[in-house]
C-alpha cells in the first residue's frame, strides 16, 4: 500500500474565497427558490394566463413581494458573479479585469435597484387596480 502524504494548505480568506463559497451556498438555496418560481410561473400558469392583473394580484401580497425580492437578490448576484468568473477564464490582463470588475459592479447595482424598487413600490403602479 502506498504511503499517504498530507499537505497543509492555508486558504486565504479573501474576496475570491468568499465568492467561491457564495456561489455554492446561494446555489443550494436557489434550487427550491428558483425551481418553485419556474415551475409555478412558466409551467403551471404560463405566459398566456399572465397579464397586469395577475402581477398585481401577486405583488399585492407581502409574501410574494418578499419572495420575488429574494429571487432577484440571489439570482442576479449569483449570475453576475458567475459572469465575472467566466470572463476571468478568457481575459488575463489585470487592467482589463479591473475595469470589468468595476463595470459589472455598477451593472449589478443599477439593475438590482431598478428591479427591487419596482417590487417594493408595485402597489403605486398605474397597473395596480
Amino acid at each position, binding site marked *: 500500500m502506498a504511503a499517504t502524504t498530507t499537505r497543509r494548505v492555508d486558504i486565504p480568506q479573501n474576496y475570491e474565497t468568499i465568492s467561491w463559497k457564495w*456561489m*455554492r*451556498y446561494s*446555489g*443550494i438555496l*436557489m*434550487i427550491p427558490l*428558483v*425551481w418553485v418560481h*419556474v*415551475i409555478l410561473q*412558466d*409551467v*403551471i*400558469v*404560463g*405566459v*398566456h*394566463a*399572465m*397579464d*397586469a392583473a395577475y*402581477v398585481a394580484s401577486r*405583488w399585492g401580497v407581502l409574501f410574494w413581494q418578499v419572495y420575488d425580492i429574494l429571487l*432577484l437578490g440571489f*439570482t*442576479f448576484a449569483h*449570475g*453576475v458573479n*458567475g*459572469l465575472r468568473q*467566466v470572463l476571468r*477564464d*478568457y*481575459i*488575463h490582463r489585470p487592467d482589463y479585469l479591473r475595469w470589468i470588475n468595476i463595470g459589472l459592479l455598477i451593472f449589478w447595482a443599477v*439593475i*438590482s435597484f*431598478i*428591479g427591487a*424598487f*419596482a*417590487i417594493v*413600490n*408595485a402597489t*403605486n*403602479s*398605474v*397597473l395596480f387596480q
Partner: protein
Amino acid sequence: MTTLRTALTGYLRYRGREGQYSFLLHRLTGLGTLLFLVIHIIDMAAFYWSPEFFQDALELYRLPIFQLGEIALVFAVFYHGANGLRIAVVDMFLPHQWAINAQRNAARWTLVITLLLWLPAALYMGYRIFNPEFSLF
C-alpha cells in the same frame, strides 16, 4: 482574443468526456439564464417604471418563438441547478467523491434527473404553444 480562440478550439478538441461536457453545459446554461434574467428583471420592473413597455414585453413573450425559448430556459434552469447541486455538495461536504469514475456517473445521473424533470414540463409547455387555452391546473 487569442485566449478566447484557444479556449474555444480547446473545447472542441479536448476529449474530457462527461466532466468536460457538464462543464460546458453548466457554463452555457448559466450564461443563457443570466441573459434572460437581465431581460426579465427589466420587463418586470417595467410594471412600475413603464406600463406600456410591460404590456409590449408580455405580447412578445406570447409569440411561439419566445415560448420555444421559454422551454429551453426551463431546461437551462433545471440542468444548471441539478449540476450546481452536484458541484456544491461534493465540494463542500463530500470532497473525497471528486474521483473520475464517481463523477462520470454523477454527471450522467445529473443529466437523467434533468431530463426527467424537464420532459413533462416541455411536453406540457409545447402542447400549450398550439393550444393557448389548455390548462391542467
